[in-house]
């Protein structure tokens, strides 16, 4: 070995180290021991392509969070990102076969229909204002399209009166109004399409009812931690609170995406659909895919005038990532 030149001997040592993690060649050659130690450390040298890519991804995520958080509040400063008036970053999109759900919302919550139109080939698109929130409804006009019922937390002035109206409008009680330990008087309704409405009136100054809008999507998942992590990576969602029981079960958690709140409970998923306003739907679509979402349709300019990309998240919820014109 000693009659080999130093560069060749070093190369043999590196070969053994890199390919097999074998340092014995270095030990047999004391002249190379110090260099072999450097070589051993270099096996852990990070790829600079990798560190730059990860940096860019984090940077994109933080920029997006900042844009979304400040966008709606400062719409006047952000000419390329004006959210439709009255809307928040996230709007539930409920698919049903007919206009019965819109009727139910009008009769129960005094909802006001603000817009209705045809979706060519897909039925009717309807928008309703419920208190301080907007809800979108897609009416397929077909009974063979499986329903995708979802759940909502709704704050009203008088839960008992609203609950009674919901039952009159065809809802089924899942739990009569009662004072709940979490600071609200709440009753639970299932409508004729299977959607759950957790109707509540705030009790006391600490109640969530003072922090949330009228309607907040209530998403169910079995692995809330994993799902929240996905939403954080995909959409820059920020955790606001989380209750944790022994054994890691999370009975309740809440995140914010832009200016919209979303609540979570551990239960079998009720996968639905949500409209998500983003300053850059293309970038957010890519980010969602990188976070583990499945593409349903790449971003494109739609007949409605919005640019929209469609994805399905790991729980099965569909997200329409949109930028309004």
């Amino acid at each position, binding site marked *: 070995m000693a009659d080999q030149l130093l560069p060749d001997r*070093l190369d043999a040592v590196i070969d053994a180290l890199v390919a097999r993690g074998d340092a014995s060649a270095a030990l047999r050659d004391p002249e190379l021991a110090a*260099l072999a130690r450097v070589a051993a450390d270099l096996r852990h040298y990070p790829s600079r392509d990798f560190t730059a890519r*990860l*940096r860019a991804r984090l940077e994109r995520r933080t920029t997006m969070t900042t844009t979304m958080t400040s966008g709606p509040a400062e719409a006047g400063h952000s000419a390329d990102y004006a959210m439709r008036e009255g809307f928040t970053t996230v709007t539930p999109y409920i698919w049903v076969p007919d206009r019965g759900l819109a009727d139910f919302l009008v009769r129960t919550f005094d909802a006001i229909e603000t817009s209705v139109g045809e979706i060519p080939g897909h039925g009717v698109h309807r928008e309703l204002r419920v208190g301080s929130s907007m809800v979108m409804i897609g009416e397929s006009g077909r009974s063979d399209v499986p329903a995708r019922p979802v759940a909502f937390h709704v704050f009203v002035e008088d839960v008992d009166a609203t609950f009674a109206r919901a039952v009159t409008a065809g809802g089924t009680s899942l739990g009569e109004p009662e004072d709940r330990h979490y600071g609200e008087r709440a009753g639970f309704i299932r409508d004729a399409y299977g959607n759950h409405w957790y109707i509540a009136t705030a009790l006391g100054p600490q109640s969530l009812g003072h922090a949330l809008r009228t309607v907040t999507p209530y998403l169910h998942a079995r692995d809330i931690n994993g799902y929240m992590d996905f939403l954080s990576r995909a959409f820059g969602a920020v955790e606001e609170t989380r209750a944790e029981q022994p054994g890691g079960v999370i009975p309740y958690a809440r995140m914010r995406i832009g200016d919209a709140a979303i609540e979570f409970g551990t239960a079998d998923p009720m996968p639905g659909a949500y409209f998500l306003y983003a300053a850059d739907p293309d970038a957010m679509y890519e980010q969602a895919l990188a976070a583990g979402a499945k593409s349903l349709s790449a971003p494109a300019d739609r007949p409605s005038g919005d640019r929209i990309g469609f994805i399905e998240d790991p729980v099965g919820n569909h997200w329409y990532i949109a930028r309004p014109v």
Partner: protein
Amino acid sequence: MDVSTDEERLLIEAAQADPARFVELYDRNVDRIYAYVSRRAGSRSVAEDVTSEVFEQALSNLGKFKWRGVPFVAWLYRIASNALADHWKREGRDSHDLPPDVPDEREHQDLERRVSLFQLVDRLPDAQRQVIQMRFVEDRTIREVAAALDRSEGAVKQLQLRALENLRKDAGHHG
């Protein structure tokens, strides 16, 4: 409190108020976390996946970080330890595996030495740095490196030797 911890604290507070500042915390710590993870990961792709996971989670949870005088990197090591344990679980490794330890004083010194070494690599002359990159990061043979750089194998081996000698010399404590 020394100047660097004071500075770190300010930086964390800045990033908590404005997430765009998070990349500064990333720049300061990515080599440490990668070095810690790489030692336990078994492969580059796992080390990269877990390192990504650590910073994605750190960004998501930055609001929950509370300054208690412990360096920020200690918090990141804890996230990394859990991320590795989760990775092993997903890989179907024995679920009795406990999360790996966060670095003790001795490992901490080892990691700091490696981080300094990585920064020295970044400052090597281009040709030497490229050889290190291809040999150690891309696992290429001398013949492949020679072809890529359009040099003889002998010349590449010389570059490799010179790079390692420079690194040993500049790192000081390797000699």
